[in-house]
């Protein structure tokens, strides 16, 4: 495996560990509701600091259930990931189909070779 690929995999592993460890180590156990959103906690804190405060506007549309809400969040992530993946697919293909010259790191050559390859992709 190439060294750069190894580093990339280690980065992914580190991100997974950072997200999983708080749950595995039970860092939310001291809370009434473990791993609630920070924004919900902030709402509680606001009420503590100013018990009379009433939110003066409510969302125009609220997902009717937690399931629908998480579905919409998943949709948001999927849309974003789709575009990012498409971009990498296009770039990779262009680079593969481009003449060898595109690989030379020298600025003018790289830039010039990148430009004509941009044509057929659109």
């Amino acid at each position: 495996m190439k060294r750069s690929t190894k580093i990339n995999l280690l980065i992914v592993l580190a991100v997974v560990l950072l997200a999983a460890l708080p749950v595995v180590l039970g860092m939310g156990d001291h809370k009434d509701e473990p791993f609630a959103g920070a924004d919900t906690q902030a709402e509680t804190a606001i009420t503590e600091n100013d018990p009379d405060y009433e939110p003066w506007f409510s969302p125009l549309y609220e997902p009717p259930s937690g399931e629908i809400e998480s579905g919409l969040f998943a949709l948001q992530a999927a849309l974003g990931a789709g575009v990012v993946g498409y971009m990498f697919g296009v770039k990779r293909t262009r680079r593969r189909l481009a003449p060898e010259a595109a690989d030379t790191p020298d600025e003018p050559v790289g830039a010039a070779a990148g430009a004509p390859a941009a044509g057929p992709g659109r």
Partner: protein
Amino acid sequence: MHIAEGYLPWEHAAAWGVASAPFVVHGARALTREVRDRPENTLLLGASGAFSFVLSALKIPSVTGSCSHPTGTGLGAILFRPPIMAVLGTITLLFQALLLAHGGLTTLGANAFSMAIVGPWAGYGAYRLARSLLDRRGGTMPLDVAVFLGAFVADLSTYCVTSVQLALAFPDPDSGFPGALAKFGGIFSLTQIPLAISEGLLTVLVVRLLRQSSRGDLIRLGVVTDARVAREEEKTK
């Protein structure tokens, strides 16, 4: 995690809206100019906005026992400079406010100020600073380090601003603004530290993949400025 709908007094909400508006308008002009003058960057531009879309949809558990989400604005700030992220970040916030009841329309100005303005600028500043300090050494590691710092700072500073905004609006009855800042800082900023590290790592990953697949773009955008850095990369393969 953004300030929820209706959870800022209207004077504060209006003031943050007024503060954010010029940045967003300026950013919209910068975005239009970028798309018109450099259409070859449009795909990468869209992907930078999409990256912010993905990351701000992911609610991740943190060491404080609560969840928050990254912002994803550091990547676009590094690649396309902060003004463009003022628009792309605000679009993400608007989507969440309208469809997900996350954040809000009345708090859009305040949330845009933290996530789409201060975050990208602070991250870009950290990135530039790190680059100017590390560039002399050459090689690929310094670029990764600078990108990590940029994304980390963009993420964390966003939530520090959120804490300040809430502390200004809701000072502690006894200890006033400092007490409230400590309280909201504990909720937002502490929670955010591991997430900011994750965002830094993911942004580094994207830039590393971009260096493999589209170095021409990075050279054009001035992220990989000299051929020396690119050549160093060849060696490490």
